[in-house]
């Protein structure tokens, strides 16, 4: 680590070499994956297309949850482990609200309005839980060493998961869908209407979120706080409220994802959130953490990759699903920790 100018000069070409090797390995991996996808499509085009549509749907859900990770990480550099479980609580709330409390289990105009109400309520529900977690736990730990908020987040994740266990029971529950499973069939590939709803909602939410962050005063405050908390405070920004608002936004995204998940996947499971959250985090890293568009693109990509692995005729199959996703995560963090859209940042001192 003692770097005089002489050793720095000597080291320079070596660093370049490792970078070149890393890049070559990375490109080789990507090319291999592309070749594998083409091979699958040539072999079984119909199956591949329907698998891809499922992947797109899941990917949109991952994208919405990933937005929550990316927002929170962007502003206080905390990996909010509890976020996936927040999503899970959201699914249970949304399903219960829609089916048990509003009593909706058919299709029609009334149920669609009820669904809209459920969206609003689930977003409020998740946003308030996330704000509550921030207020009671993370806020007090803002000045603590980094390990402390991380461990707190893990603890909160367990608390959420057990609330879900008591609420939903240990077995998965099936729920009726308002949107339904109908769709149009093109060449034997069924495109469900719910897919359009999912993609539409995701696009609208991404647009609103980008607008808030880029164009509003509150968004400006968020960006300032992300850059330098003390500086923002000196400029008269209420840092606590801004961070709280960020958590609320992230929670609202998870709430929307939860409603969509109940509508398209139709099940609630108490242990769904943890895996889901990890995959969504992988998506956020893939897109470049802190980057909103990146999170959505990363989510869609991870959804597609996972679906391809699970459903393609020459995939590894569902048993290896986690292994594939986490291998992507590890490779990504090793070769390209800044993600697709992110910029390489050095650790703050």
């Amino acid at each position: 680590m003692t770097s005089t100018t002489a050793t720095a000069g000597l080291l320079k070409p070596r660093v370049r070499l490792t970078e070149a090797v890393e890049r070559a390995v990375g490109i080789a991996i990507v090319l291999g994956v592309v070749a594998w996808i083409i091979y699958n499509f040539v072999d079984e085009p119909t199956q591949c297309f329907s698998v891809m549509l499922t992947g797109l749907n899941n990917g949109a859900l991952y994208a919405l949850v990933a937005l929550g990770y990316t927002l929170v990480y962007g502003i206080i550099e905390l990996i909010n482990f509890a976020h996936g479980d927040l999503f899970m609580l959201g699914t249970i709330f949304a399903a219960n609200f829609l089916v048990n409390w509003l009593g909706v289990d058919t299709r029609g105009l009334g149920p669609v309005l009820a669904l809209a109400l459920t969206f609003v309520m689930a977003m409020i529900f998740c946003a308030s839980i996330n704000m509550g977690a921030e207020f009671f736990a993370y806020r007090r730990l803002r000045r603590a060493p980094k390990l402390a908020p991380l461990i707190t987040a893990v603890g909160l994740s367990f608390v959420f998961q057990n609330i879900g266990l008591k609420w939903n029971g240990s077995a998965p529950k099936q729920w009726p869908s308002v949107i339904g499973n109908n769709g149009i069939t093109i060449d034997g590939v069924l495109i469900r209407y719910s897919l359009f709803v999912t993609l539409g909602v995701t696009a609208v939410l991404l647009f609103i979120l980008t607008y808030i962050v880029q164009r509003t005063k509150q968004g400006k405050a968020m960006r300032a706080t992300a850059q330098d908390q003390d500086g923002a405070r000196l400029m008269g920004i209420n840092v606590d409220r801004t961070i709280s608002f960020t958590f609320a936004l992230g929670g609202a995204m998870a709430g929307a994802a939860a409603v969509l998940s109940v509508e398209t996947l139709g099940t609630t499971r108490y242990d769904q959130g943890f895996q889901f959250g990890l995959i969504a985090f992988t998506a956020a890293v893939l897109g470049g953490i802190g980057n909103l568009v990146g999170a959505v693109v990363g989510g869609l990509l991870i959804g597609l990759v996972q679906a391809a692995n699970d459903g393609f005729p020459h995939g590894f199959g569902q048993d290896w699903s986690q292994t594939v996703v986490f291998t992507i995560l590890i490779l990504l963090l090793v070769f390209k920790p800044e993600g697709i859209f992110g910029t390489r940042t050095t650790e703050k001192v």
Partner: protein
Amino acid sequence: MTATSPPVNRRRLGSLAWPLGFTLAVILIFIFYRYWLPDSVDQVQKFVADWFPPAVINQCVIWVIMAIGLNVVVGYAGLLDLGYVAFWAIGTYVGAWLMSGWFFQVHWHIGGPPTLNKAPGIHISFWLVVIFAGAFCALWGVLIGAPTLRLRSDYLAIVTLGFGEIIPQVFANGDSEHLGFALTNGQQSIVPIDGIGTGVFSQLKGVNPQLGVFDLPYRFLVFCLVAAFCVFVSLRLRRGRLGRAWLAIREDELAASMMGVSLVRAKLSSYAVGAFFGGMGGVCYAVAVGGASPNFSFNNSITILMMVVLGGMGNVWGVIIGALIVSWVNLAGLSQFGDWYNNQFNTNIDFPSYNFLIFGIILVLMMLFRREGLLPESRTRLIMREPARTELETLGADIEAAEEEDEVILEEETEDELVGTETTGRSDGGNA
């Protein structure tokens, strides 16, 4: 680094204090279970069988080994490892491969129990397997650590978590249906696993040549020996050059690297040592439950982390106590308390189903109110209570904090001189 070392003889006795105490405690527990318990009245036997069954005591010792291992990574070097269960799983499967008839194609016998001399498969002495599994896990620790240790600390947590998810899945899918050859038994477990060969001790009365499933008190001795090795190694490392490098990294990575600590080497070695202990504990676990099945999950990693955090990061004794408390509550305490409570108040509450809820709440509360753990290392207490430097400066409170710190350090120094016993973390550098 002022040398306030007490006279030599006092220090020597001090360094003997913990082995003596440890041995005494182990022998007392052993005598209790082996000789006293079978002859005691039925009521006592029932109470012990309910609340402190010997099988649970053995598992607690294994959790202690795990917690000591994770303590090296999290407590000493300050790297959050959320996938420690991976090393546990690898250790368990290495134990199962090398001490069973699983690979029946070969006949390898190196110091295994003499009763199995003709049996197919690999039968190697428990002690060799423990060391080999430790080394194997250490290798894996280095392999997984090498590319990722240059990442930021929170990314590291995620990578280890991913690793901890991948490894159990690989073992669960390791049957011939998925891989084409039988690496593991898939969702079923690899059974049976050889007992621990006793060698010359089998001449003693009541000792079998091979410690089977029912020789719990003798196995307890064996596991405690492994745990003692882990305690010894981590205490010695803690005082040495490497241990001080770890603490320096934990406290301020940048400053440590400026002072000439090789970050990558120090971090990698903490990973390797932690993984080594995890592998040893894994073999013990395989022997204790008599099989290797892939039911490892993130919950195990968190339970071990919980032990380290609860006991006091960085302090081996605190971690041991944390491990004993948590594992006992997990394995026997909570369900027994639940039974007692339900009988007493005629309720029907499923207490064990709440244990992870309780763990989660405890983790959060510990981080909020007692970040340093129940039995903190004096250094950790200071670090965990200290706000980040820049924050201090903005608050203008650095002078106040520095004064406070000085006071605590002064107190400790006087305490150290008065007591003169060996306590971890106080006199580093004093006699290196």
